[in-house]
C-alpha cells in the first residue's frame, strides 16, 4: 500500500499514544509484547496485534525517527531467565507527530473495538 510520506497508520498512532501514556505512568521504555497487550486492553480487542503488523509498525516508526530502541542488557535478561527484550522509547519527534493528529482526528486507542488491532 502506498502512503503519503509521514502519514501514520492507526496501529502506528496507537503505539505512540500508548507508549506516551505508559511513560506518564512511569514506564519510560516498552517492548513489543507489552505494547501489544496495552493496545489490546485499551481497545478491548479479543486478540493481540499480529506479530507482522506490530513489528513492521515499530520498524517503520523507528525509521521515521519517532521511536528509538536498544537491546536490553544481557545480564538483566539472564538474571530474569528470559530472552532479551528490545526496548523502545518515543522521541521528541514522536510526541510532536501525535499532537496534531490527536487534535484533528479521532483517537484510535480511545475507541473500543472488537477484533485485531488495525494493520
Amino acid at each position, binding site marked *: 500500500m502506498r502512503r503519503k510520506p509521514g502519514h501514520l497508520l492507526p496501529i502506528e498512532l496507537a503505539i505512540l499514544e500508548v507508549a506516551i501514556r505508559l511513560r506518564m505512568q512511569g514506564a519510560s521504555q516498552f*517492548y*513489543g*509484547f*507489552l505494547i*501489544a*497487550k496495552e493496545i489490546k486492553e485499551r481497545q478491548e480487542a479479543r*486478540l*493481540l*496485534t*499480529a*506479530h*507482522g*503488523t*506490530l*513489528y*513492521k509498525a515499530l*520498524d517503520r516508526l523507528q525509521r521515521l525517527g519517532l521511536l528509538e530502541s536498544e*537491546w536490553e542488557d*544481557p*545480564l538483566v*535478561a*539472564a538474571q530474569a531467565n*528470559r*530472552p*532479551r*527484550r*528490545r526496548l523502545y522509547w518515543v522521541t521528541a519527534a514522536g510526541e510532536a507527530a501525535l499532537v496534531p493528529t490527536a487534535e484533528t482526528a479521532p483517537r484510535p486507542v480511545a475507541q473500543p473495538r472488537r477484533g*485485531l488491532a488495525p*494493520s
Partner: protein
Amino acid sequence: MSAALALAIGMTRSWVTLYTSGLPRELRDARRAEIDSDLWEHQRTAEFLDQPPGGTALQLLARLLLGISSDLTWRLEAGHIARSERSISMNESGTMRSLVVVGVVVALFLIVTGIGAIADALVQGDLASGQAGSALSRCSPEPPWGPDY
C-alpha cells in the same frame, strides 16, 4: 508445554526463519530475537493468567496468520533497503519474488496443517501432533537467550 502450544510456537519460529532468510545478519537476528522474546512473554503471561494452553496456541496462530502479509511487505522493503545499502548490482528481484512465492506456499501449507493438528490436539489430545509440535519446536532455531546474545 502442551502439544498444541509447542506446534504454534514452532510454526511461528519456522515462519520467521523463512521470511528473514537472506537478510543481512544483524537485521535477521534482530527480528528473530524480537519474535522469540514476544513468544516467551506471551506464553508466560498466559501461564500467569492461567489461560488454557489450547487457547494460547490458537491466539499465537492467529497472530502469525494475520501478520503474514505485513511480514512479506516488511521483508520486501527490508531486502530492498539492504540491497540499496550494499549497492549490489546483480539483479536479485526475480530471485526475491521467487523466494516470496515459495515462502507463501510453504507458509500456507504449514498453517493449514498446523490448524488441523492443533484442532486435533485440542479435541483428541492426539499424540502424533504432540510429537510433530515438539519436533518442529526442536528443529526451529534456538532462541538467542542468555548473556552471549
